[in-house]
């Protein structure tokens, strides 16, 4: 893996909201996997020391002046990656649920040029992932719908653990969905003719902080995302925008 990464200008985008307990370890683990990764932590309006902890470890820190929601935060990271000319970006949550040791799995298809976007899924393969019943049902419903829309089997539409090449960075920098964005982002990629791949990964239980998604909110998000998917079916999509530096 290390020689494949070689000279690629690569960056890890770490969205974090009040993750002072875990973000430091996430940064250390990314460095332990590969020192060549630049790391940008996007602090989505935390009220704790998230930004300070990240800056102490030498990561780039983008502090949003107020909470934008996960979509706006992640897009800030992709904008940074785009404007600084990165060839490869991985996205890893600051809460510690994504294990940087699993990076080779999601990087491989992108490095091999077989995919523009590779998503780590909890549900393909044998990885045992526990979560609440409602959440599992919701994830499964979305998986069915997204699979039908993109005409390709997708099992985990809520995973924010992924790798993208320059094409993906350009697309996400230009356009990224707002809240609960992974579902729409997956569809958007395929509609823009980017090649999507899903690989099995093991994820950890959240080790700190609290999930930003509560029960009532998930119903609201589900409705909203279903509406977005439905309306999206009637949109026309431009081909991927690629510029040369």
């Amino acid at each position, binding site marked *: 893996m290390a020689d494949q990464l070689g000279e690629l200008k690569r960056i890890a985008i770490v969205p974090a909201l009040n993750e002072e307990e875990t973000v430091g370890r996430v940064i250390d683990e990314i460095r332990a996997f590969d020192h060549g990764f630049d790391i940008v932590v996007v602090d989505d309006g935390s009220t704790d020391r998230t930004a300070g902890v990240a800056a102490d470890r030498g990561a780039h820190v983008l502090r949003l002046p107020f909470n934008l929601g996960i979509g706006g935060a992640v897009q800030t990271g992709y904008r940074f990656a785009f404007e600084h000319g990165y060839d490869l970006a991985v996205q890893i949550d600051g809460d510690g649920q994504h294990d940087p040791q699993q990076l080779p799995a999601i990087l491989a298809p992108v490095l091999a040029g077989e995919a523009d976007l590779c998503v780590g899924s909890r549900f393909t393969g044998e990885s045992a992932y526990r979560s609440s019943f409602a959440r599992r049902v919701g994830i499964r419903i979305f998986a069915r719908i997204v699979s039908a829309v993109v005409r390709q089997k997708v099992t985990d539409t809520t995973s924010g653990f992924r790798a993208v090449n320059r094409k993906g960075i350009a697309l996400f920098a230009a356009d990224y969905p*707002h809240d609960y964005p992974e579902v729409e982002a997956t569809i958007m990629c395929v509609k823009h003719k980017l090649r999507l791949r899903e690989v099995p990964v093991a994820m950890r239980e959240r080790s700190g902080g609290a999930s930003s998604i509560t029960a009532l909110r998930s119903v609201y998000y589900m409705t*909203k995302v279903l*509406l977005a998917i439905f*309306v999206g079916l*009637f949109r026309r999509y431009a081909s991927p925008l690629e510029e040369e530096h």
Partner: protein
Amino acid sequence: MTPLPVSIAAAVASFLLLVVVFELIRSRRLRERYALLWLLTGVVLLALSLWRDGLNTIAGWFGVETYPPAILGAVGALFILVVLLHYSTVISRLSDQNTILAQRLALLEQQLREG
């Protein structure tokens, strides 16, 4: 009983509302987040216009014996109030965020000038 022309006009109007909202979302001039209330308004009004017995029944609950379509107007007004209240909260949030942005910008400019 609701006069048929009233039902038809109300159904057409609420259907048009739904179509316009849909098109606004599709052309990205309206975000899903702010469209949900409008869609709910359209769906409820459309249902009440088409389901004429239902409208009579509901009118009965409120003692509106003479002119059931008044309920349509009342429900419409209620939804408009809710949408307006929602917008007031949205504007409040935007205005708070705008203040923060202006303050951050002023601090940044000061750093650039003196740094």
